[in-house]
């Protein structure tokens, strides 16, 4: 059955104001960090074109600033700069060549911004500091409100000249319009504050100005924050009232339904795997019931089945699939072809998309090393048909294998264990992290399609290499836990991997030592707490799981840790571990780093998440082999994370 048959809702064309969409899959606006000197680039064009080619029904290009007072990120696009027009044309032409319409998102972030780059005061309805940026903004004067409205008009004009099919006003997540709409941030006493009608005035004036600029033949959409989830903020009811105003204006073609304020609860706009899919659909549903405008629903749509169901159930008219199409640009095409299982499903890990962009880096994807490199010619191998043996079927090994197979080599993967995935399987076995394991499933699917042979229970050693005599050996044997000096000789001082692999089964009270700062310790802590252990996590860092903040997982970890009674102790280092002669329990001495004061814990087990050691024996033994070219990838080079395993696998696999 084709996708249109299997996903009848997803692939039903629809009218969006003056234009027609081939299907309901939207690649919504998101910052990429691909701009240079404030202008869109070739990188943007190729990035969007790849999703258009892959079957998206509508592309919405990343936010552009409407006014110089707003530069929240170093690489914010200066929509007000006339130089954007020529760059826009490159982007829109590339997308139109694939027969797909593209809109431009325009915005002013107001107080949800920084003066770091603009060196000007932030502008906002009232002098209320944003909870994340923490800069008190300047309350807009009447004249400045006009300047902003003019800015929207000017930028909309640039978008028209640049060939866009319309404009989306970002009035959700992070926006001055959102701030005007919300009683929490709008404390004005003039015509722009106070009553709902007054708070909506700026939006209405912007809409009139933008519609005037773009004329009747282009799309105008509004992305609304339908529930701010902050004290005294916009509620669903308020948002519905605004949507009704939009509808009544007759100037708006669709609304996007979002929840949360991105600087108060960022984990609600880039929800990670710990937040259930469809978490924001209730607002889309409510809007759709209230107005006749088409509604875009957003938030963790990962696979076509789920997306189709949201449409079938009447929650929304269109679905925003952002990370889903970052991970697999051909998401829509694969669904349409009736092969949704071939989709490289997004993990909702947030590591290289949200995480990198928030750190002012270019957007990437742990699963898809081509993200942001679509404008570069695909690397072509100089010598196809080489005989390649990959040792290890973790993410690095599998990525090497599939990249090499794609480049035309004959590839086999030997894995010592009985299953592929290595540490990823362990990682995916912790509570709420199963989706992380989809990485391996995706890689195996691709290997199968490319004819890579994967054999299990086959450790590779020098003898095997001699026997099989491949032309290339790629060592992807991963890493092993490092035993801390203070744990020597103590059987109940173990590694998280021992726990997750089932080698040991701690019970009673457990002290988890987090010296990695990512999911390793927190995931294992949850698993053990779920099994009834009394768990405390200790770290020398200032925060347990310090890097969870980058993937927007720190907030929800706090919530779960509290619910599960997991204790957190920061700024402490383990000094030594002794054993009580009488009870056999472990006596742990901790030092408080700021003062050096020590304290003790008596526990049944100590479980460590420490930096690992590379398992590079095979590589070291064979790297100077006279006839087998020996290379290495992933954790066996240096134990890091899957993004590096995949990047190195791709790099080595394509360049053999």
């Amino acid at each position: 059955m084709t996708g249109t048959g299997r996903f009848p809702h997803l692939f039903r064309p629809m009218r969006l104001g003056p234009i027609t969409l081939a299907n309901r899959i939207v690649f919504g606006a998101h910052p990429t960090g691909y701009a240079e000197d404030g202008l869109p680039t070739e990188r943007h064009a190729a990035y969007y074109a790849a999703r258009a080619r892959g079957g998206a029904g509508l592309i919405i290009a990343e936010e552009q600033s409407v006014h110089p007072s707003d530069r929240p990120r170093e690489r914010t696009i200066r929509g007000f700069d006339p130089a954007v027009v020529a760059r826009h044309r490159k982007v829109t032409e590339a997308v139109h060549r694939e027969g797909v319409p593209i809109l431009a998102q325009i915005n002013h972030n107001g107080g949800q911004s920084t003066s770091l780059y603009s060196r000007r005061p932030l502008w906002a309805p009232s002098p209320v500091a944003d909870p994340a940026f923490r800069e008190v903004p300047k309350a807009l004067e009447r004249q400045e409100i006009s300047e902003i409205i003019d800015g929207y008009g000017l930028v909309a004009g640039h978008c028209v000249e640049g060939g866009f099919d319309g404009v989306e006003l970002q009035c959700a997540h992070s926006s001055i319009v959102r701030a005007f709409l919300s009683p929490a941030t709008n404390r004005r006493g003039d015509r722009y504050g106070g009553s709902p009608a007054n708070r909506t005035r700026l939006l209405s004036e912007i809409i009139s100005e933008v519609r005037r600029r773009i004329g009747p033949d282009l799309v105008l959409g509004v992305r609304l924050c339908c529930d701010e989830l902050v004290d005294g903020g916009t509620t669903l009811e308020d948002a519905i009232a605004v949507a009704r105003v939009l509808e009544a204006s007759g100037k708006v073609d669709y609304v996007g339904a979002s929840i949360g304020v991105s600087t108060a609860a960022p984990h609600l706009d880039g929800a990670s795997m710990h937040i259930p899919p469809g978490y924001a659909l209730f607002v889309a549903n409510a809007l759709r019931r209230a107005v006749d405008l088409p509604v875009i629903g957003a938030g963790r749509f990962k696979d076509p089945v789920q997306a189709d169901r949201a449409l079938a159930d009447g929650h929304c008219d269109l679905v925003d699939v952002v990370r889903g199409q970052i991970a697999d640009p051909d998401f829509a095409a694969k669904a349409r072809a009736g092969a949704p299982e071939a989709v490289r499903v997004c993990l909702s890990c947030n590591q290289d998309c949200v995480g990198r962009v928030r750190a002012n880096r270019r957007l990437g994807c742990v699963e898809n090393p081509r993200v942001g490199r679509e404008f570069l010619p695909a690397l072509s191998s100089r010598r196809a048909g080489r005989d390649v043996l990959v040792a290890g079927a973790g993410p690095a090994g599998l990525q090497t294998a599939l990249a090499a197979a794609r480049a035309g080599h004959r590839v086999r993967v030997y894995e010592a264990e009985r299953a592929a995935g290595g540490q990823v399987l362990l990682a995916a076995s912790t509570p709420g992290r199963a989706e992380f394991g989809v990485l391996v499933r995706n890689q195996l699917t691709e290997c199968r399609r490319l004819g890579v042979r994967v054999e299990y229970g086959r450790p590779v050693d020098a003898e095997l290499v001699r026997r099989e005599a491949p032309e290339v050996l790629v060592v992807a044997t991963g890493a092993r836990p490092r035993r801390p000096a203070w744990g020597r000789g103590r059987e109940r001082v173990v590694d998280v991997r021992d726990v997750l692999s089932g080698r040991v089964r701690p019970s009673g009270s457990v002290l988890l030592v987090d010296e990695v700062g990512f999911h390793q310790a927190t995931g294992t802590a949850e698993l053990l707490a779920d099994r009834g252990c009394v768990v405390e996590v200790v770290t020398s860092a200032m925060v347990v799981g310090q890097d969870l903040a980058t993937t927007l997982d720190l907030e929800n970890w706090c919530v779960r840790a509290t619910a599960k009674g997991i204790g957190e102790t920061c700024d402490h280092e383990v000094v030594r571990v002794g054993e009580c002669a009488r009870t056999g329990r472990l006596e742990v001495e901790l030092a408080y780093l700021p003062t050096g004061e020590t304290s003790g814990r008596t526990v049944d087990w100590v479980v460590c998440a420490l930096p690992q050691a590379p398992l590079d024996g095979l590589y070291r033994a064979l790297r100077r082999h006279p006839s087998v070219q020996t290379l290495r990838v992933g954790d066996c080079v240096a134990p890091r994370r899957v993004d590096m395993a995949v990047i190195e696998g791709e790099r080595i696999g394509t360049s053999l």
Partner: protein
Amino acid sequence: MQLLSPLRLACGVTSPNRLVFGPHVTNLGHGRALSERHTAYYRRRACGGSGIIVTETASVHDSDWPYERAPLAARCAPGWAAIARACHDEGGLALAGLGHTGLQGTDAYGRTALWAPSDVADPLSREVPREMDTPEIAEIVAAFANAARLAVRSGMDGVEVDAGGRALIRQFLSAVTNLRADGYGGAQRTRFAREVLGAVRRAVGRGAVVGLRLCCDEPGTPGGITPETAPAIAAELAAAGAVDYVVVVRGSLRAPDVSRPDGHVPPGFNDAAARRVRAALPSSVAVCAQGSIVDPRHAEELLTEGPAALVEMTRAQIADARLGAKLAAGTPERVRPCVLCNQACQVRDPRNPPVSCIGDPYSGHESHPPVVPAPVDDPVEVLVIGAGPAGLETARNAAKAGHRVRVVEQRERTGGMLRVLAAGAGLGRLALLADWLTAECERLGVRIETGVRAGAADIDARLATGGVVVLCAGGRMGEPGYPIEEGAVVHDVAELLSLPEEELRRRLPAGPATVHDPFGGVSGVSVAETLAALGHEVTLVTPDHLVGARIATPDDRARALARLARARVGVVKRCAVRGAAEGVLRIEHVHTGETGEVKGGFVVECGFRLPDDGLWRGERLGMDRAGDVVAPRGVYEAILEGRRAAAGIEEMYR
């Protein structure tokens, strides 16, 4: 002054004086190349009297990409050439900073594994590097030599090789990070450094300067380099590279930026280590002192009585680019002080802020025309309301342009929030900037009237006679954002810190106190320390996951935490305040919503402030505002806007 006397280095090159502008992260680059912004930045310092400029450390090899704009030697030739020309035009020397950050880099940009002597993880970033093999060691040695050759061919007078707190070379020297069993580890830990320095010297020849930035203390990492072991290393390395000078610095895996701490660490922390190194080196090798040297008297002492032949005054020259010139003119009191706040010059931050200074926001922006008023023929009467940093900076610049300026301040002292903050524990140095601004205004003939409250009538009178008014009235306490019940005592942090100590003691009831700091900067920590010093039992409440989230560097933050711990200040993290009642503060966990209480007889509120803009009556000809009265932010913004207001006077008047 010894500081201003020339110094002939062993290689034969002569520095016009002893004042060094050390290498530091600027984010001024264009991609990984040095840019015109760099040239303008360094030229301004060379012109202002810096004898030796050492450019931002360039990575010698592309295995190193520690921050996005980190210069890469292979791309620096045009930039070095331009900078060398600029410095030579101004009579100074230019040296190229060369380095490799090894395991203290990041894979975020290069997207390859980090290189290091051993696979020891960085305890801060937690990244695990990979151990370099022998050919790779040789590759890096050659890369240092190639980079040095390129620098000198581009016109630089020599190089400074980085073996400091973030350097691969230090990682080889230190037993903490070098666990190798081959000929580069154990007793041979100095070999890599020797090879690098030898190769660099051969590459640049005898006549060019080779400096060595050497870590002589690794705090917080037991087993590392200490001031006791460093002198021998210094001697060995100096010999290996026929080194002209050694900069004595400190730094470690746990505290990479401890060589440039904030003002809580009293200057002089490195003097003893420098003395030991001096004693171990032949007299032909100069010692360069480094580390929070911001006072010319301290510098002079190090040169005349101490170990140094050169002094690195980096932040001091970010704060005042004309430091050397002002000393040469015999006007040391005119040097704008660096207050060691680390607020605008500490830019190792993924957001890539350009280097600047709270006292001189033009720093780092030298490639743009300066925002200062041009001298005028027809001076105007200017009334500045408020003598905080914004008001004083407005007045100073307006007076410089020739206007007749009067400043009125309702408090008894000038300096505004600078003075208030400076009253908090550990922040006393901020007062130096207030003093300087006041003294400069006085020197320029500004009339400052304190204890005078301006009103609408003053504004009208000034405007009516064709004058200009700049409102710099600052901010006031904001609405706390939670209900304050009967009997609860909530103090504004600024108001408390404005009181003399005896008055403060009298005002505050004995017993426990709570500090609510929704901002996370230095001031919340400081006021908590102040109260603890007065004998209160203090609890600090923050919405963040950690204390002092906004403090400039992890090192400074760790020290703040240590001070709080020593002062027995309790910390409640991840909590917002929901209400104040008699003797208790009601709190709520920002993520779980759990509620609780903190005991305290009174609350000190450090929250966001509101503009004190009662006198502001809309945009009109002849009236402008600057600083917190626009929106309460920081000193940097206040000074920047003060300059802009002064520059706008002409326009306002017309």
